[in-house]
């Protein structure tokens, strides 16, 4: 039963005042917000790097930077976006805020560990980002050996930064797993758990299992650079492809750390705005774990041309195909959930539609890359770049924006300007496709990635892509502006403007410090909509 309360009294925002009450907070909601602002700052920096990269590519030949500077620009874009934005984005910001609320809990299991994870995150990020003012790093975010061993740039600092940030990810994962196991409200059985929580659960398991391997890898690479330990360096008898195995053992599951929470958000939005329960709830939960499991056994598909053995190539290609099964289950279920529902085209739902369109394209293009025969030609071209931007930006980022627009009234008790939000969603959607669709064509025609120059025949499409980047850049800026405006001047929202039935909506907006005045008792599933 949803109760709408309009509460202007004490909430987590005004519960205590002063900067120290934020910096030393143990409240998961405040920690979530701190993560949110911090990650968005890094998103801005990584986004500027992207705009610079795209501007360089607006015409062949040197436009605004030398080849060396270009190498650094795309390396920073990739490193910042991967480690400082898209991995922590949904789990640490929205997950931290809403997991306890959706579970009917008062906080995460380990609030101090939560705060520690935030400080570990910004320490690692600071380590990495200060290199912008030093030599910079030009290896690409993948740090392949032997170049990453030899490069004289400040790669070591970035590697150490990644090492430190990894622990933030691990701490968050530990926290969420124990929270979900031990702090569910009475009556909240596993089959009544919101799918966003299932998604966070799978993500946390991946974080705990995979992140330590990248920690070890960057640690070994640092030792390789400092002392020449010879594990990855062919000059000393090591194997550079071994580095790739170590690197991708983490980095492939990492992309699922990126997308699974996004899928979780879509799972929250679609039933609410279709006024219909999820089609195949159990299958959806199982599919999340199917995806997470397959995530661990496919890393070699990043290495098809690395002179990996034919056996490994065959195994990795075959198993990669399997990820399409649980993913397909999810896509079909989302559509089936909407079928015969009563669709409300509010902004969160628009982002969900955008997600479905864009993520599906991204996922399908993955199949071309999973097929070795075509991958040999498409690898290291813009086709790959387009593929992962479709799933990461089109997927995770659009889902994130949907989640932000869905949950903003809960977080701040205010509504944003709906008309502006809808138009901006359109701008971002169009801008995104204008930026990245041409890149599929560029890639299949042979334009390599990470090159600051290209053949004249690729000019038109590159120019179009750069123009698109301005559209999305503008779109994100507009979202930032109206969302921040809404916090202070937006229309006051009640506790449940979307008439949703998950637990976070059964408490006032913004939530009180302790989340729930009385621990809720759950008696039904999370998406029982009958109107």
């Amino acid at each position, binding site marked *: 039963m949803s109760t709408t309360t309009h509460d202007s009294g004490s909430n987590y925002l005004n519960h205590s005042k002063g900067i120290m009450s934020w910096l030393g907070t143990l409240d998961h909601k405040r920690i979530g917000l701190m993560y949110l602002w911090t990650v968005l700052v890094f998103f801005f920096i990584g986004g500027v790097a992207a705009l610079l990269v795209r501007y360089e590519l607006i015409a062949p030949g040197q436009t605004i930077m030398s080849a060396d500077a270009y190498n650094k620009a795309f390396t920073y874009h990739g490193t910042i976006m991967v480690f400082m934005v898209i991995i922590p984005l949904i789990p640490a910001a929205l997950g931290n805020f809403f997991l306890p609320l959706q579970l009917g809990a008062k906080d995460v299991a380990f609030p101090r560990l939560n705060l520690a994870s935030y400080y570990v995150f910004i320490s690692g990020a600071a380590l990495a980002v200060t290199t912008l003012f030093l030599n910079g790093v030009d290896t690409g975010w993948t740090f392949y050996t032997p170049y990453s061993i030899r490069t004289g740039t400040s790669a070591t600092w970035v590697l150490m930064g990644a090492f430190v940030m990894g622990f933030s990810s691990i701490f968050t994962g530990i926290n969420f797993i124990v929270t979900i*196991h*031990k702090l569910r409200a*009475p009556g909240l059985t596993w089959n009544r758990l919101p799918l966003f929580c299932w998604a966070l659960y799978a993500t946390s398991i991946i974080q705990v*299992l995979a992140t330590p*391997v990248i920690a070890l890898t960057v640690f070994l690479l640092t030792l390789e650079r400092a002392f020449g330990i010879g594990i990855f360096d*062919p*000059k000393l008898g090591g*194997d550079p*492809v*071994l580095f790739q*195995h170590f690197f991708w*053992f983490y980095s492939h599951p990492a992309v699922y750390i990126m997308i699974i929470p996004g899928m979780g958000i879509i799972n929250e939005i679609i039933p609410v705005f279709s006024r219909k329960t999820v089609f195949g709830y159990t299958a959806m939960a199982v599919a999340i774990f199917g995806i997470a499991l397959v995530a*661990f*056994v496919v*890393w*070699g598909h990043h*290495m098809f041309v690395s*002179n*990996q*053995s*034919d*056996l*490994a190539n*065959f*195994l*990795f290609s075959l198993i990669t195909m399997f990820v399409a099964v649980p993913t397909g289950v999810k896509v079909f279920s989302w559509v089936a959930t909407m079928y015969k529902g009563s669709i409300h085209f509010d902004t969160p739902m628009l982002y969900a539609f955008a997600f479905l369109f864009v993520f599906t394209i991204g996922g399908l293009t993955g199949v071309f890359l999973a097929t070795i025969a075509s991958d040999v*030609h498409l690898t290291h071209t813009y086709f790959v770049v387009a593929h992962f931007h479709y799933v990461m930006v089109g997927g995770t980022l659009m889902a994130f924006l949907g989640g932000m627009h869905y949950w903003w009234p809960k977080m701040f008790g205010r509504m944003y300007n709906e008309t502006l939000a809808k138009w901006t969603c359109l701008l971002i959607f169009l801008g995104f496709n204008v930026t990245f669709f041409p890149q599929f064509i560029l890639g299949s025609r*042979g334009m390599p990635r990470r090159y600051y120059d290209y*053949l004249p025949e690729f000019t038109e499409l590159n120019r179009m892509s750069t123009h698109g980047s301005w559209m999305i850049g503008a779109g994100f800026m507009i979202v930032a502006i109206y969302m921040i405006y809404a916090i202070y001047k937006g229309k006051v929202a009640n506790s449940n403007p979307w008439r949703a039935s998950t637990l976070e909506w059964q408490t006032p907006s913004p939530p009180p410090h302790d989340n729930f005045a009385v621990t809720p008792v759950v008696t039904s599933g999370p998406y029982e909509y009958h109107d």
Partner: protein
Amino acid sequence: MSHHDSGHSKQEHHHHILPVAMAVKIWAALMVLTFTTVFVAQFDFGSLNFIVAMAVATLKAVLVCLFFMGLKYDDKQNVVIFTTSFLFLAVFMILTFSDLFFRGDVMLKKDEAFFKAASGPAKFKKPWNSTPEIVAHGKALFEAQCVTCHGAEGKGNGLAAAALNPKPRNFTAADGWKNGRKPSVIVGTLTKGLNAMPSFAALPLEDRWSLAHYVTNFGPNIDKDTPADLAKAGVDTSKDTLGAVESKSVPVEVIMERMAEDGKK
């Protein structure tokens, strides 16, 4: 006796206290097992040594986990949680092995002719001289490995050539040859690789000569090797065969040389 708060007794356990005597017994067992493993290592049982060592280590680990770490009496969730990690360690190891220890061993059907032709003892006397037999051998090799880029007629218009820039060598043309058209020079190019073409140093040297003789047949006015050319290529014309050492993989030195040259460009 410990005092339990009321609350959700679903997850209530008595936390088990490991008795002192039991702890000492486990310690003794661990020490015995340690002596055992050191003792066994003094003798050579071949590959059994490793199996025994790992079995003993695992037994010790299980004792530590069950008793010292209390998993025997603990919430089963924790058992599942901890054992899962070893599953993923195994996955990591097995799939990485599927690459590291199977390089060069698996042959796809279409390559069988190529590998059959490429392995085995010297087939031709003085392979630096072109003969119809060596050209036929080169043709078999070319059709298995080179057609994708160079095309069936050697015009540099194979299927994969579409994505390449510069385009693969058109053997039917007389000019534009970067290193010249002598067989010895072609062998050198095959050994080092050029642009998008990888090094074929993994092929037996005799096969590289066979390919060289075959491709020079495509175009007009074949350049022949002079004795000076042959000497430069390291061929001892007084012998009947080439004295090269065969290796299954491209030697690292060749790669390093090639990378250094690429870096200079």
